[in-house]
């Protein structure tokens, strides 16, 4: 690891001011620190945002659950309020990584990193989330741009994520047996008007599967998507799973999610 400057910001404004083209925000550091240790990333400045009080915490209103960006996975999974309002979100958090990761990793960090196999991006898409930054509000569908790519501008800091409370929802993951990231994770959420089927792990970026959403909006039953033959041409192939297997898993996990709703 190369030398770098460590800053601990007291508020979003200071954090944003310190940001430059060779800096990174540091929350849980679950990706940033290993990348630096392996020499895959080098920064001149690391701006620690963990101590910004405003960025942590969970608020539930009648319609939404708002989680501060620096809130740890363990806090989301243990929150009674989240469990009551959106139980699937709590169980998603409980299934991230291992206890060490859950005790340090944060929701904002996960979303800002936008790993194609991360769990939280699927929750954002399925639950029609709004990403609150220090500059604006971004709809989840416009936030996730591509592999490790988001709509965030340099120096823009996520402050909170606001999830819409659905009528029913479930997240089902087929984990990579080694890393326990999602080989395929499917988040099904039934809202008043429509159904979202957010898929992570299958392609280069999280997406809402239109075909399954449509079928389920018409008839919210796993039989309506059973045997669906998805196009696997854009799906990932690696040593853990071929595109063909992933395409099948997307349907299987979606069915499981519907059944679990």
């Amino acid at each position, binding site marked *: 690891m190369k030398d770098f400057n460590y800053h601990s910001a007291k508020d979003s404004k200071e954090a944003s001011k310190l940001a430059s083209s060779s800096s990174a925000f540091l929350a849980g550091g679950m990706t940033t620190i290993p990348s630096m240790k392996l020499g895959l990333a080098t920064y001149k400045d690391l701006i620690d945002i963990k101590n910004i009080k405003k960025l942590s915490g969970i608020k539930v209103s009648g319609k939404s659950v708002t989680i501060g960006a620096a809130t740890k996975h363990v806090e989301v999974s243990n929150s009674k309020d989240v469990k009551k309002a959106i139980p699937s979100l709590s169980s998603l958090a409980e299934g991230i990584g291992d206890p060490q990761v859950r005790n340090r990793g944060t929701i904002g960090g996960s979303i800002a990193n936008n790993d194609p196999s991360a769990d939280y991006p699927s929750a954002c898409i399925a639950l029609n989330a709004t990403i609150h930054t220090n500059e604006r509000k971004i709809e989840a569908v416009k936030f996730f741009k591509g592999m490790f790519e988001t709509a965030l501008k340099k120096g823009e800091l996520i402050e909170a994520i606001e999830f819409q409370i659905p009528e029913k929802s479930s997240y089902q993951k*087929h984990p*990579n*047996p*080694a*890393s326990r990231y999602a080989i395929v994770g499917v988040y099904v959420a039934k809202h008043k008007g429509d159904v979202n089927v957010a898929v992570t792990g299958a392609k280069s970026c999280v997406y809402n599967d239109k075909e399954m959403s449509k079928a389920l909006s018409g008839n919210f039953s796993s039989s309506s998507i059973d045997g669906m033959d998805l196009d696997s041409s854009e799906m990932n192939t690696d040593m*853990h*799973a*071929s595109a063909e297997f992933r395409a*099948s*898993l997307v349907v299987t996990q979606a069915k499981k999610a519907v059944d679990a709703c």
Partner: protein
Amino acid sequence: MASLVGSRVERKEDKRFLTGKGRYTADINLANQTYAIFVRSPHARASIKKLNIDKALKSSGVVSILTGKEIADDKIGGLIAGWAIRSEDGTEMKCPGNPPLAKDNVNFVGDPVAVVIAESLAEAKEAAEKVEVDYKVLKAVTSTADAMNGDTIHEGIDKNLCFDWLLGDRQKVKEAFDKADKVISIDIINNRLIPNAMEPRACVADYNAASEEITLYTTSQNPHLSRLIMSAFGNVAPEHKLRVVAPDVGGGFGSKINVYNEDIVCSWAAKKINRAIKWVAERSESFLTDIHGRDHVTHAELAVTKDGKFLGFKNETIANLGAYARVFGTVTPTYLFGPCATGVYEIPAAYTNVKAVYTNTAPVDAYRGAGRPEATYTIERLVEKASMELGIDKTELRIKNFPTAFPFKQTLVHTVDSGDYVAGMEKAKQMADYKGFEARRKESEAKGKLRGIGVTSYFEACGIAPSAAVMSLGCGVGLWESAEVRFNPTGQVTVYTGSHSHGQSHQTTFAQIAADELGVPIENIDIVHGDTDKGTFGMGTYGSRSLAVGGIAIVNACKKIVEKGKRVTAKMLEANPEDVEFKDGEFIVSKSNKKKTIGEVAFACYLPGVRDEMKSPLPEGDEPGLKETSFYDPSNFSFPAGTHIAEVEIDPETGHVKLEKYTACDDFGRIINPMVVEGQVHGGLAQGIGQALYENAEYDETGQLMTGSYMDYTMPRADNFPEFNIGYTCTHATTNPLGVKGCGEAGAIAAPPTVMNAVIDALGGQEVTMPATAEKVWKACKNLKKSNAKAA
């Protein structure tokens, strides 16, 4: 006094380990020490055109940079294969040179070419990045099956073939196959594994210019053997000027038997720069450069009669040695493998042929079970297949071919002294509720799941190894073990053993044995190991040998102490030595009330006359002191055996295999500490199930390791396993005084075929290679659905 042998004595070492007071190599810091970073080849096969260290030398904090040229100039020897294997045609095996730092050619990703030594770790890393190596990249050979058709890796080693070895009689096998009603054949890949000891390798080398002594602290399973190899073959220092210390070591599984490049380089360099050097592997270095295990490609056939009697067996195996042949590299796929190939069965004709090949991958060597898991996997997969093809119950078919009496003289090599395979099978079936399986299968089917049951009956030859046997097999070093039992004048005991504990609980189990032999409280017994300056000599710990060889040396040394004690007591109490009996720590003159405790005898041996009248208690011919040594050379291997039964449930939609039940019924002979044995069984099972369902070391065709971190190499976790159902049948070994056999490797040997037999049973007999990952199983489920539809 109650016997400690056989009871669940709490581990003496746990206080140290659980309170963070263990002292591992990385915990050792010496005054004025420097830090080493190795520059490693990023290519699987290349020649080194130029190596430029000028820029790196100018980097801050650099003390020295040494390369393959300096090590060659100083005539430091390379790494060696410990066993000579002769090919079927009588020619000697072919081994390439393996210099500790490569000078001209590199042969796997991770092969070290230079060492950078600096004042701090960060500076060493920084400078290492500035070492410029100009490689001419050559086409790598990575496939085990195709290695003989690849480019020649090592000059003069045709077809990349180290040896083409045969054990058994081809002609007799042919005759047996000619008589067979049916021949069952199978093609098997025994997947490559990475040992992944919890503690990565590390070493700290120190040099004392005044005494000209090198001290090497290292993560070794066998410090004396390391010293011997480094001295005799590495030319690092004469043995009396080289001290090797293996302090607390966090797991080995065979990966820490070898002397590694870093041990030799750091020891040599410490003398060169006259300062201490510390090196600690990063986890990614461990993945790349620790020895790997298994990696066989096998075709095997079993000749049977229609009613299921086995007539003949053949095994044609290609074994991957990796880039170089290391200490146990050549013996693992031969003498540790071939003699066990026929398993627990009477098979009148058999042979095993092994072609050992070089590839541009990390060296392959002994890993938990070493050869015996590969042998067991082949025969047990084959027997299971035979049961399906013959339509005979898998347990009945096995029992039909078990030996009917012991000693069991096998066709190939071993004479198994003891065992009761039928009793083991019957107990395992009961424990696993074998009878109830069909009902459970129906329950799973009702849920849309596939359920399978798999059986394995295994034996292994361990407690390696009798010198006579070892030498006749081509190793110049007899694998005996030594022990020294030393009384302090005030009655406590220190036991020095040549075995090494890196998780085996010797501090407890060896103390239990000595406590029973000597009648001394266990609190007063210390076990010392792991330092060439302390113990006499030792062969170390591997091949489930600590108890069956090292433990017996302790027993024998204790018996010598008792014999001397009897003579001394007789002199002190004016009796005949023949009339003195020893029991529970007391020497008693029979038919009298005269006695001495062993503590009193020890005191008298050291300080005659202090307590009693001024008269020496030592009989004529006995020297003062109470200390005895034993070098125990076993008369035979020991032969643990057992039957394991696994049950899996498969989700055909996702290919997920859930291990529902696992039953292990083992015969380890006499058990010293049941709690410790359970721990060993659990660990072995975790690794064996890991091989079957999760672990796989994968290289791409250019020789890059694809599974070089825990993100891609699946280490099993606790939540992957059910509660293990463990039981024993204890037939005592007849070849050693304790009746013990060894338990460390059994789980890793028996679990892979047990689990795979269950998976393949669930899949209606369709072959799946290890590890049975979700995608492979999913595909097999799809095929099964298709073929079922066709049949309907």
